[in-house]
């Protein structure tokens, strides 16, 4: 019970402080602007217009939500260290893993709330322009949500190792490079000398593949949705990586000097 209370208290304070960050209104404006631009377009035919709309949506929504997840997370622990509030928490009967998990829950709630608001803005725009919802849209949104949690965990882990600015840069670089890992490395895993294959295997398994969470093509081209059963491995993959990064963050924070 004490553990749950501590997690709730830390998460609650994290949400209260995170929602005052300035990047949230900036990202909201970016989403509103993107949606407004999409809504104001008139010069395509119906199908082309829908494809254009979904292209913009599937470009802006993942990027903005990853930026929100990263910027919401990367400042929390460094800021608490700097203003000594972390010391006040750790001087209490609170285990260090509770600080990591509580902080993660707080930033995850903030990022997920922002994700739902941003998604709702796009969905309202679609509804207003009477665009037909693609069958894979719900799948795509679900996978993007998992990606947001993954970036929360990644930014939290990195914020223990480096500065907030560097954490943000690494996370955003990874957002772009992570899409390419699987398509680039998969061919190198077979039929190459072991000297090439070994580092390729290491890179392949040591990094989450973000292209698994990208359903842009099925959404844009209105492909039929795969069954939810097919989506479970991908969700498990994302949640597994999130858990692994949180475990690594707990291990690191347990040993580190604050």
């Amino acid at each position, binding site marked *: 019970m004490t553990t749950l209370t501590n997690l709730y208290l830390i998460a609650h304070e994290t949400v209260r402080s995170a929602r005052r960050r300035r990047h949230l209104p900036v990202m909201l404006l970016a989403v509103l602007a993107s949606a407004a631009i999409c809504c104001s377009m008139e010069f395509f035919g119906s199908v082309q217009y829908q494809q254009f709309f979904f292209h913009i949506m599937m470009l802006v929504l993942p990027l903005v939500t990853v930026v929100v997840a990263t910027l919401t997370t990367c400042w929390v622990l460094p800021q608490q260290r700097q203003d000594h509030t972390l*010391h*006040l928490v750790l*001087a*209490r*009967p609170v285990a260090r893993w509770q600080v990591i998990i509580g902080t993660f829950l707080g930033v995850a709630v903030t990022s997920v709330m922002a994700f739902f608001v941003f998604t709702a803005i796009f969905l309202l725009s679609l509804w207003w322009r009477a665009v037909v919802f693609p069958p894979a849209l719900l799948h795509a949104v679900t996978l993007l949500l998992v990606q947001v949690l993954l970036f929360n965990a990644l930014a939290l882990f990195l914020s223990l190792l480096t500065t907030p600015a560097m954490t943000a840069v690494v996370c955003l670089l990874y957002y772009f490079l992570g899409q390419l890992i699987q398509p680039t490395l998969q061919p190198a895993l077979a039929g190459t000398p072991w000297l090439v294959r070994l580092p390729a295997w290491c890179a392949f398994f040591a990094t989450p593949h973000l292209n698994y969470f990208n359903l842009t093509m099925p959404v844009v081209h209105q492909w039929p949705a795969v069954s939810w059963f097919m989506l479970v491995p991908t969700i498990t993959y994302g949640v597994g990586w999130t858990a692994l990064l949180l475990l690594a963050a707990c291990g690191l924070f347990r040993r580190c*000097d604050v």
Partner: protein
Amino acid sequence: MPEPAIQCVDVVKDYRGGLGGRQAYRALHGISLAVPQGQVFGFLGPNGAGKTTALKILLSFIRPTSGAALLFGRSTQEPATRRLLGYLPETTTYPEYLTAREAVMFYARLSGLARGTAASAAADALRTTGLREDADRPLKYFSKGMRQRVGLAQAIVHQPACLVLDEPASGLDPLGRREIRELITRLRAQGMTIFFSSHELSEVEAICDTIAILHRGRILVQGALTALLASATEHPSRAAALETLFVNTIRQDDHAHESVSDRA
């Protein structure tokens, strides 16, 4: 004989730097100290002596390279042990959107108090520190002295057996210092053990029962303040005697260190 409230046993701390951590700087050279229960202990030392490192080890913010810090015989690395501890850092920037009551309630609940108990404990702590009238104002409107009182309120809200204060009077006006001193005296009367780290010798002289002087990561002097000052009877006041004791101890150690360096 009761167990010491705070005990450091041969605590060594090395900070590693450089490529692969090959350069090491020893911040603490095996310090040992014991603070009896119910006493006010003054932890003195010039800047860079290792006071903050020792405090951080005591509070389990950093791990010692060797040795142990114990609170009532239990390791402070155990979260449950820290229920017995209250801590006031030298400076803290509390979230400005919180009111004093919310901030103190938050730390009370993290200390294991239930919501109802935490509310009444926070009200008591705020009254004790003279913040009853301002309890529901946001902290962004608080002066430095008032924030320091919020710090004290959060430190005592769960009625800890031991209070660790890092420069509690730092940045306060004379009135604020007097109030903090009176509060510490009241807490000692209630049986609380107080570990008091400070540069302010007059504060230490006024409230401490025992002291230790730390320099270059070593404890040079440790004992009852009255006994240590007894030798300095030529001074007109105890404050002047403590200053002389402090300065002489540090200078003697510096001379000894220079002699060793010259011989090397």
